[in-house]
């Protein structure tokens, strides 16, 4: 059963994501004030939410590790956070493109979500440093798990902090009036989000399977030696 999960997810992701993008590009109405550039929305926001989902999943696996002390959760937690970080890079890239197109700048310190996301991104980059500079073993697994849990707590806390900070760092230059989202827009968005989540799940399964295969091969080679 498990062996089929990966390919099935991959196929599902492709189908749903393709549909979603098709809907977003050709079916959903064009945004009144932003024009065609607004269509990045359908990629950018689902990617951002998917990144959060990955971090959350990683923290959940971390909790399982600390709870049960089963070594396999370490790899699962790591893989989830790895995925989250990859999607995080994509958020920064798509966000910056959007910013360039609609605001004419690549980055703005006044946008709370951007800064929040940058802080989180730095936090999770340090997660990899922690892993690379520690010898593999139960201790590393524990430390990574604790750090991953700190991550999910940091998300709401920094959100709160950035919200507080807004007043004094910069005057708010760009207001972000939530555009009245048409039903069709929302539907296309949901399909895109589902597709993105499926894509993340497929990648997660693929990486996990690869890593497990590696470990297995190593064990076999050792047993033969």
């Amino acid at each position: 059963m498990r062996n089929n999960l990966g390919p099935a997810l991959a196929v599902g992701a492709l189908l749903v994501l393709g549909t979603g993008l098709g809907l977003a590009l050709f079916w959903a109405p064009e945004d009144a004030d932003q024009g065609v550039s607004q269509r990045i929305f359908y990629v950018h926001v689902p990617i951002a939410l998917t990144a959060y989902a990955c971090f959350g999943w990683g923290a959940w696996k971390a909790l399982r590790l600390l709870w049960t002390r089963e070594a396999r959760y370490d790899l699962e937690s790591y893989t989830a956070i790895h995925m989250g970080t990859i999607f995080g890079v994509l958020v920064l890239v798509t966000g910056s493109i959007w910013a360039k197109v609609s605001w004419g700048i690549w980055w703005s310190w006044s946008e709370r979500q951007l800064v929040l996301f940058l802080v989180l991104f730095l936090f999770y980059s340090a997660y990899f440093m922690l892993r690379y500079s520690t010898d593999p073993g139960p201790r590393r697994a524990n430390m990574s798990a604790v750090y991953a849990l700190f991550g999910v707590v940091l998300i709401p806390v920094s959100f709160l902090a950035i919200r507080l900070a807004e007043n004094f760092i910069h005057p708010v230059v760009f207001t972000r009036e939530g555009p009245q989202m048409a039903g069709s827009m929302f539907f296309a968005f949901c399909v895109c989000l589902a597709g993105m989540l499926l894509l993340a799940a497929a990648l997660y399964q693929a990486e996990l399977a690869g890593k497990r295969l590696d470990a297995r091969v190593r064990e076999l080679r050792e047993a033969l030696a």
Partner: protein
Amino acid sequence: MIRARGLERRFGEKRVLAGLDLDVAAGGFVAVTGPNGSGKSTLLALLAGLLAPTGGELEIEARRDEVGYLAHEPLVYRELSALENLELYGRLYRVPERRERIGMLLERYGLWPARHERVSAYSRGMAQRLALCRTLLHDPSLVLLDEPYSALDADGARLLDAELAALTGERTLVVSTHDPDRVRPLATQEVSLA
């Protein structure tokens, strides 16, 4: 007291212990022998609970504060004196009659005159004696000694002989050594690693 089945420990790729079985009854005395790098210290750290097994089962019938563990390093603060170190450990272990017992051990291991000196000024043998004091401070029921004779002079070694003889039967002992003849008279079983 100790029950291990298929005990395994890896460091990264490297498998140090592979499938070790061990049964030690309360009051037993295990001599652990084996060449350099065979995994004696690893085994003792596993028994102490400082390392987790990466495979197999390990059961120890002793609470953590009933274990006394002597490592290669003395596990004491170098910048504190012997007295300050033992005082700290005595408090943490909640040793009854703490001060008296510390005084007794310092005297027994010949450290009384040097009790106020920083450990970093100790000679190696003195540090080993202090480590023995630390290990025995809370009168542990499971005593794990990793090469306890190392760095001790002839007097110190005789002292330790007597200490081990007194503990045998009363406490469970696991002692690693490169000189098995020294502990063989007391040992009830021997584990040879290779």
